């Protein structure tokens, strides 16, 4: 998959069975198109995070298929799937500056340092943090780190964005403000998004459609 390919039909899951050795769920079928937000809700331990890890390629499915723009992702390694994944924790690379964190995917794809930094600076401004560009990653508040993590994922121009309960460790007003930003962004950019949460009110706020595990 190429990061610059325009998104056509989005992500489709067919008879997908997830788990480590035993199935965690029955066969799953759903799809998410450009600009849509599919919210997956369920109790702790029901397999929400495992599902996202499977879609990203971290874990192999026990059965079924994952299709991105109707291309079967079976056997495609994580770094070639063009699927962005944002975890509950921001997981910023501590040895890199904020700008280099955001521009990481651009450097990896072969862009020059200047070009990647210029784009990263734009994205940092977009998430409203340009005034703290010189800070270290560990000096950021939870909300600021969450915004940087989102900017980093967006910089890669993912074909699909997976959000694994991001910002759930933050206070409620900050979390809701960030989620509103996410909704605005993925709708505007047309990025198919799968969001995992155990909070039904959050699901209703974001969702184009909801799947309950």
């Amino acid at each position, binding site marked *: 998959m190429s*990061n610059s390919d325009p998104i056509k039909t989005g992500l489709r899951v067919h008879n997908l069975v997830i788990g*480590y050795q035993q199935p965690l769920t029955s066969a799953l079928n759903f799809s998410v198109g450009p600009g849509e937000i599919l919210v997956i809700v369920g109790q702790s331990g029901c397999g929400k995070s495992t599902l996202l*890890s499977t879609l*990203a*390629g*971290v*874990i*192999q499915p026990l059965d079924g298929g994952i299709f991105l723009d109707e291309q079967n992702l079976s056997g495609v*390694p*994580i*770094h*070639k*799937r*063009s*699927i*962005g*994944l944002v*975890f509950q*924790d921001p*997981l910023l*690379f*501590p*040895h890199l500056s904020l700008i280099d964190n955001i521009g*990481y*995917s651009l450097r*990896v*794809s072969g862009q020059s340092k200047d070009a990647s930094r210029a784009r990263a600076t734009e994205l940092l401004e977009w998430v409203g943090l340009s005034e703290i560009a010189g800070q270290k990653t*560990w000096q950021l508040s939870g909300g600021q780190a969450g915004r940087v993590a989102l900017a*980093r*994922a967006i*910089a*890669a121009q*993912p074909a699909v964005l997976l959000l694994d309960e991001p910002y759930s460790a933050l206070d409620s007003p900050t979390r809701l403000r960030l989620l509103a930003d996410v909704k605005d962004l993925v709708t505007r950019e047309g990025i198919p998004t799968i969001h995992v949460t155990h909070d039904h009110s959050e699901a209703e706020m974001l969702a184009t459609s909801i799947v309950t595990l």
Partner: protein
Amino acid sequence: MLALVTVPFVLPTVVVALGFRSLFGNAIPNGLLLVVLAHAYINIAVVIRLVGAQWSTLDQRMEVTASTLGASPLRVFVSVTLPALRNSIVLAASVVFIFCFSSLGIVVVLGDGSGTRTLEQVLLRSTSVLLDFPTALAAALLQLTIVSLVFVISARISRNEPRAKVVFERVVVRGAKPTFIVALTCLVATIFVLGPAASIFWASISSTSGPTLQWWVDLVSVENTRIGSPLAALGRSLGLASVTAVIAAILGGAIAIAVMSKKAIISTLAIIPLGVSAVTLGLGILLAFSRGTFDLRATGALIPITHALIAIPIVVAVATPSLRNVDPRQYFVALSLGAAPLRAWWTAFGAVFSGVMAAAGGLAAAVSLGEFGAATLLSRADSPTVPVQIERLLSKPGESAFATAGVLSVILIVLTMSLLLIVDRIASRKVFT
């Protein structure tokens, strides 16, 4: 596998040296290459323990995140994993440097004389052969300065960055290719670790005419070595190890209690011997206890005192975490139930403390059994310890001397490993966890 790769680190250095000489024979002559290989063999455990400990707690989601951003596995390793391991790599490199810098046994046995002569050898020769104490002191000061510099540089390079507290369950490797790579790595590591030890064992049961137990039978013979009885050396080493165990357990235990009480300066003082070579420590002890009423040279106490000093940092490192694991509120509960302060302390900490002291004593005895540098400096010509005896045997020509050194090495390996297994059993008791 972790326990297996730790074996080289706990083997006496002269035993490792004998293993390498026996393994490579004439294929690799004595010299720099063999000295470096043997040091790599001993210190591989340091790197695996220090770097592996940090690696095993890295949040794997960081690597997954880099992958989802388009980084290939190699790129992830170089740009995310390695920087995250930087502190432990720097620490491991500095510890290995210091161990190698102050190493003696391997250089003496596997070196080629002037080409591989080290500062430690200059120090030993100035003290024990030339009796040139000013040169010895200058060498010791130079050594201390360089070790201190390494510590300072290491601390400067290491960054004090906060790390994520979350430990993510690492993905279990599955599939034929990864399993093959892991199996191959384990096989190579096993051969690398066990090769020298197996070679020593073979040397002890073989001769030019084939397998034999003659060298074991001849162990009781004084004449076969012309440099003293191997059995007497064994008895001497066991005696010194026992005294060392008692001194180290008492002093180390007292220091551990003080460290537990948050006396940071004591904690710092206790680890100083780690950065000082055994010969330098021996020289210090020799100078301190060689005059007036403190002249202990004739008592035979200098070696166990030096060995205890070498072992104390290890004892403190083992004892302090276990003692800190005890809930101090138990002490106050005992006090509230009417126990006197000493009784209350023993009620709260006694079970752990006694076990810790037993484990610490065992560790100190293991250190003493294999220690070579200080023993070479402080032991009399007619009363060597086992490692000193092994080195002397290796400097003699003939199959008999080499094989007897092999027999003594096998015994030393068995004794050291037995002690460490006992320590491990004590340390893994439920009361410690």
